């Protein structure tokens, strides 16, 4: 597996989408938070996520219709945040998500195997114990998700869109003398299907400004969504497969030159 000493990753997200918690109510956010509050003392309420289940088969086009949704209980997602704003647990009725993010320039990526994976497993098991204790139903895991967010800072391997071919293996600028000038900005998305349609890897590159310091970046986001099936095995194996696609995908999409900057290990 490709390994880097100084990868540009600023955030990792491990998530699970499930069904079956029909008895989950507002009160359970508070009860669960109370159990985790010693490690996640900060709390926030944010908009709920829609379902992101990967579908395969003939695409169905549904003409978008304006709609107003009436619901009889609050749809919400709660954030439990640690005191350093570095790790986050996101809970909603059909989602469980664990985030690690870099908070200071000097923070080193703690790596998946020895730090992020066990940390996820610990809070996930705690969540499952809570579900069982409160008799909220049985979780039916539908899909897991692994996202790595990378910040490719201007000045580190690239200065303008002229250098983009030096960063990404899949992009090339037109040769000099051809019609178009350099693009003022650049973004792209690509999607890859996993063998046996186990899931997809979604890649996006977008120009952005980082809010914390105003630095111009290209945000490279890789999200692997893997269906929870018998072929894949249990949830942790499902996440491992997703992470493998993210890491190998990252290595394939970026150039050797950038790998040297990120100190890829041989």
């Amino acid at each position: 597996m490709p390994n880097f000493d100084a990868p540009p990753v600023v955030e990792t997200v491990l998530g699970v989408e499930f069904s079956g918690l029909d008895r989950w109510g507002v009160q359970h956010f508070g009860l669960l938070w109370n159990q985790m509050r010693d490690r996640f003392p900060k709390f926030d309420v944010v908009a709920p996520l829609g379902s992101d289940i990967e579908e395969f088969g003939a695409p169905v086009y549904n003409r978008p219709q304006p709609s107003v949704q009436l619901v009889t209980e609050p749809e919400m997602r709660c954030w439990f945040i640690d005191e350093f704003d570095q790790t986050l647990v996101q809970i909603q009725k059909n989602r469980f998500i664990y985030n690690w993010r870099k908070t200071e320039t000097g923070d080193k990526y703690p790596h998946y195997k020895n730090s992020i994976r066990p940390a996820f497993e610990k809070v996930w098991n705690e969540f499952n114990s809570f579900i069982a204790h409160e008799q909220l139903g049985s979780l039916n895991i539908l899909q897991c998700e692994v996202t790595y967010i990378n910040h490719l800072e201007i000045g580190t391997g690239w200065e303008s869109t002229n250098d983009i071919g030096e960063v990404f293996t899949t992009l090339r600028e037109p040769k000099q003398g051809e019609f178009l000038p350099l693009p003022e900005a650049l973004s792209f998305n690509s999607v890859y299907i996993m063998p046996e349609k186990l899931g997809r890897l979604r890649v996006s590159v977008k120009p952005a400004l980082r809010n914390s310091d105003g630095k111009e970046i290209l945000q490279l986001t890789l999200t692997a969504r893997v269906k929870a099936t018998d072929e894949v095995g249990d949830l942790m194996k499902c996440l491992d497969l997703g992470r493998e696609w993210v890491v190998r995908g990252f290595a394939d999409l970026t150039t050797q030159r950038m790998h040297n900057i990120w100190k890829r290990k041989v």
Partner: protein
Amino acid sequence: MKNISSAVYENVFEIDMRLTVGESTQRNEFGWEKNSTQKYVTQFTPVTYVDEPKEWLQDSFKRLTELSKLNDDWDSYGAESPNNWTISQARDVLKNLSSEDLKPSSIDASVEGGICLSFQSGLRYSDIECFNSGEIFAVTSENGENTKVWEIMNLNLTSTINHIHNFIQSKT
């Protein structure tokens, strides 16, 4: 006995109408931001997507970061420091200004608690002030006279920016 419509209405906890005009944000009764790209994704690290990053926009973001570190009583007259909400609002306004390539002449903390983005051209002055209370007001004046003040709501941020742009650029 209730009729059906009132019974249904009383059970409606929320009507989720995501405004898609402009890009400013608004908090609903649960505290989360409506119409904020950041809040509808799993991502925790805040960034602002920009189609064409402009140098002045980067400098403005850096300035906001500096202002976000102010403490209360930063002016030694008891002024509140800008809160996170105000900083976020100011960032949204800046992003909208960037679309018009309308660079503020200065970005400062407000003694009334908030962030003031000001524009000056000759005798014409304008500002957009984001207050800690969540309100945003705009002002235009010429040579200190004909002062007009109005509140910016979600739907009129774009038109306000257009108005200020025209006002500042027009000849005195």
